[in-house]
């Protein structure tokens, strides 16, 4: 479990970018951190593996205080996939990019394991290409493949769907589901409401560095659009139709409906 306790943070000693944020991240659950640009989302996730240390309050990862634990030790538990994959690539080939990270975390048979990961993520045909020559979607999937290779317990994804289309989006979904099914926790920072409503999970909305909303994904459907708008968010169309179904008595509650929508669409795609 990750415990964020009364976290305050300032970059320059003056303005607090995070103000008294408390949060618990439990294994097996998915968390969505939402909020407008500049609300403190990315600052918050940088605390989870100790890249940033709290100005006040503390962050405990499986009981380890991030102020007293080296980043390398925390990174083994908490894997953060940042928005721009290009900032992490430096090896000449895709396969080495994966195996070098496995070695960093002391995974056994890193080379063999890297080959397996390539296959799992459908990247085998890029094995010997330079990561920089891949397309945007391929780069992002590769960055996720790299960052999940050693089976970290917590997976943090920063805006994972930007520039990700069609097939790559499905592979992202697959990676998230697999991580959850193995008992890990997933934390997603995103603006993509469709991604949020596809699974049932917990939602935390930040605004001006403070937690302004806590709840579950299905509850977002009932939130007033004006209130969501203040946090920079817009409901997707189908959320409005689900909401209509409830007021007209077709369904009794939203429980499970978000996921059901996605599932039905998936099933029908294959009819």
């Amino acid at each position, binding site marked *: 479990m990750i415990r964020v306790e009364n976290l305050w943070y300032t970059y320059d000693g003056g303005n607090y970018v995070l103000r008294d944020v408390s949060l618990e991240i439990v294994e097996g659950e998915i968390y969505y951190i939402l909020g407008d640009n500049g609300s403190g989302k990315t600052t918050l996730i940088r605390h989870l593996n100790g890249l940033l240390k709290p100005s006040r309050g503390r962050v405990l990862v499986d009981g380890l205080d991030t102020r007293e634990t080296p980043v*390398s030790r925390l*990174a083994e538990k908490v894997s*953060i996939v940042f928005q721009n994959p290009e*900032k*992490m690539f*430096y090896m000449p080939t895709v396969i080495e990019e994966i195996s070098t990270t496995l070695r*960093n975390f002391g995974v056994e048979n890193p080379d063999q394991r890297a080959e397996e990961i390539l296959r799992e993520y459908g990247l085998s045909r890029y094995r010997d290409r330079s990561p920089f020559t891949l397309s945007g979607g391929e780069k992002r999937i590769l960055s996720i493949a790299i960052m999940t290779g050693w089976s970290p317990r917590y997976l943090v994804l920063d805006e994972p769907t930007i520039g990700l289309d069609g097939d790559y989006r499905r592979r992202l979904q697959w990676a998230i589901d697999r991580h959850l099914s193995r008992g890990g926790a997933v934390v997603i920072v995103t603006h993509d409401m469709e991604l949020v409503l596809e699974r049932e999970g917990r939602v935390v909305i930040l605004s001006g560095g403070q937690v302004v909303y806590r709840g579950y994904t299905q509850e977002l459907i009932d939130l007033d659009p004006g209130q969501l708008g203040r946090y920079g968010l817009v409901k997707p169309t189908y959320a409005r139709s689900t909401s209509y179904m409830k007021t007209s008595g077709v369904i009794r509650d939203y429980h499970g409906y978000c996921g059901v929508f996605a599932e039905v669409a998936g099933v029908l795609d294959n009819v």
Partner: protein
Amino acid sequence: MYRIGLEAFRFEERDAALYRLDPRAKLLVAFIYMVLTILVNSQAIQLLITALLLATLLLLGRLGRKLVKNLVTLAPLMTLVFLANYLVSGDPMASLLPTQKLLNLVMSLNTFFLTTNPDDFAITLEKMGMPLTITLAFSLSLRFIHVLARVLTEIVEAQLSRGHRLDTGGITTRIRNYTAILIPLIIISVRKSISVAETLELRGFREGARHTPFTTMKIGFWDVIYVAASLSIATALLIYGGAVETALLEILTRHLEYMAI
């Protein structure tokens, strides 16, 4: 600790007298102080110059906090200069002089760079007859140094998250760790510079094109006063340096005696 901070050297808008002066006047004064610092070899007078510059930055520029950050960042360099001189000369007082000079040079530059936005700096250079290509290169690099500093921070963060240890291991591990930072940095810098070149094209910039800057600059009353005051102080110190030094030393010794008693 890995955060790459250039904040201490960065221009930030502020409502203070020094910010409102014409950049050309500020550049001239900075230059006067630099010449003075280089020419003067008396430690007492260097101390006086430090005091003058401090007064200018604090009173006219309201730069207290920023100046502290700025000097703290430069402290290792100044210590290094001091130690190097001390090792050669073995005389701690004599080794102080080059350190003082460095401090004063930095503060002279601060009176200009911390208070002048890069756009105005570019126009100043243009008015002095430099071609637009060069002045733009100046202001763009000043702007992008900060962008690249941020990119660098993010690269370091990404690599630390991948389990890289930046400051441990043998030589080969260390070299490998630094390539992990350098390669993405180089590739992203190249991409960014191509993108900026694209922007220049799309915004109508052409080499040798006729250019009318949007901001006009006018030398005002206070600019003249600022330059005249600094110039007279500098001249006085250069000409009557000896007398001033004796007077200063006398005051200082009397203070010291007083404290000793």
